[in-house]
């Protein structure tokens, strides 16, 4: 018995270490700095234009806070972000934290249920046919419509808000997971059949790796919408959280706090999105 020990062919060596992504075109050090500075420059131009527009609007509508007032309020809020003087008077950091906890709770529940449900839908035509109509009808409904139902069933405003976030986060996760699981290439499905991979091995080695990027995309969309919806849900719930803070500030006539809260909500939203974008990039690599 002779064992053949081939060496890679010349062509293979040339086309070489191959199918990985080519390294990104190297930008020279100075070029990168210039691009970075230019980016900051243009961002400042945009920001200045936005603030100028705001100032202009604020001048004609005297009830609106000016940019200066907004900035002062923001600084004031951020000076003691975590103070706690009873249920109706908490620092802005605490309010954001309370909202984030609710969002993560509902989001986690939605992920735990949504991902397996998505796998089921993507893997079985029957499951798809059974579940898809329900998903399609419920998906366009504003999640806030679920608030009264949550309230009646759970009898607690906080739980109702978490429930609303759960419903919000469910659909994008389910749909994207199902799409990922359903799009396993024929080749890979054939390999699984020819080599008789067990169901477990198939899900583990084929379905999950293939759908991971879609799952994370679904989670990212879910998180984005959940963070938007929590503000409205807390305005309805009127209990704690950043949405409550916004509504309470409005009722107290301090619109500059509302403006500051908007800035902070946006910042947290960007931070959340960045985390998921990183995750997605990691999953795709």
């Amino acid at each position: 018995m002779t064992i053949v020990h081939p060496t890679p062919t010349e062509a293979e060596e040339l086309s070489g270490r191959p199918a990985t992504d080519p390294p990104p075109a190297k930008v020279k050090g100075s070029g990168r700095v210039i691009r970075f500075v230019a980016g900051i420059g243009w961002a400042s131009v945009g920001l200045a234009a936005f603030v100028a527009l705001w100032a202009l609007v604020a001048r004609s509508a005297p009830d609106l806070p000016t940019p200066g007032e907004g900035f002062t309020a923001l600084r004031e809020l951020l000076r003691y972000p975590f103070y706690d003087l009873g249920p109706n008077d908490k620092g802005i950091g605490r309010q954001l934290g309370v909202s984030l906890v609710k969002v993560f709770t509902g989001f986690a529940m939605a992920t735990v249920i949504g991902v397996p449900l998505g796998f089921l839908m993507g893997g079985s035509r029957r499951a798809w046919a059974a579940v898809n109509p329900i998903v399609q009808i419920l998906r366009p409904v504003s999640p806030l419509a679920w608030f009264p139902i949550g309230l009646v069933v759970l009898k607690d405003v906080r739980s109702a808000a978490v429930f609303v976030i759960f419903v919000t986060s469910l659909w994008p996760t389910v749909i994207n997971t199902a799409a990922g699981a359903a799009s396993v290439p024929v080749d890979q499905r054939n390999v699984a059949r020819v080599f008789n991979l067990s169901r477990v091995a198939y899900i583990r080695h084929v379905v999950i790796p293939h759908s991971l990027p879609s799952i994370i995309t679904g989670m990212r969309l879910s998180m984005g919408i959940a963070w938007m919806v929590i503000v409205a849900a807390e305005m309805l719930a009127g209990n704690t959280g950043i949405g409550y803070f916004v509504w309470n500030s409005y009722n107290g006539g301090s619109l500059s706090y509302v403006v500051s809260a908007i800035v902070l909500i946006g910042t947290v939203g960007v931070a959340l999105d960045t985390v998921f974008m990183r995750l997605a990039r990691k999953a795709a690599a």
Partner: protein
Amino acid sequence: MLELTNVWKSFNGQDVLRGVDLAVSQGEFVSFIGHSGCGKSTLLNVVGGLLEADGGEVSLDGRAITGPGPDRAMVFQNYSLLPRLSLLANVREAARAARPERKAAVNDEVVERYLTAVGLWEHRNKRPAQVSGGMQQRTAVARAFAVGPRLLLLDEPFGALDALTRARLQQQLIELWQHESETETVLMVTHGIDEAILLADRIVVMANPPSPSVLDVIPVDLPRPRDRTSVIDEPAFRMVQERLMALLTAEEPAAA
């Protein structure tokens, strides 16, 4: 022995396989050649058990083929390795799944043997995306042999590779088939006339409708081992080549 009797298969009302009769004896290497859409890949998938024939019978060693099984292994055109697994894990998991009765130690030994035979043992821990197309296809070949099938089914295995790599892999395939394995019978779908002649004992020429699916079966009377550089000067090689050219040009779809 593989036997196909009056096999029919259609897609969307279009007959792709029209009464195919074919017997392949143990130890034979048979190539299938023909224009796109002539049903050669369909035929291979029916034998592999991935597709069910609409009519007729397919049997291997007297047992009817009803689905995929460990007596048959396939190599696909697009390598089809599982992207998240290392080359080693790709071969190992497939062999383990297809041959659950094997002891793990035996399985590992077989996997190492074939990965070594295709020259990839030192690259075993890389993922498919980290190696060239040729190396991926060598892994797929090792994976198929590691199952220890009676029948190896190759669907245009080297079609996506450059000429040099293709030549190297053809050589490896023949050596594995002849010396290394219990795999006896090989069916290979190809577009390459020279490849078909170089590798096969018989060449099945397939055709589009309205011709019968199997247009002709041409034996290749060339002794093995065949040397790829000198064999093309053999009169037998030339004869088969001309015959294939004539059949395939006559078959050329009018639209093309």
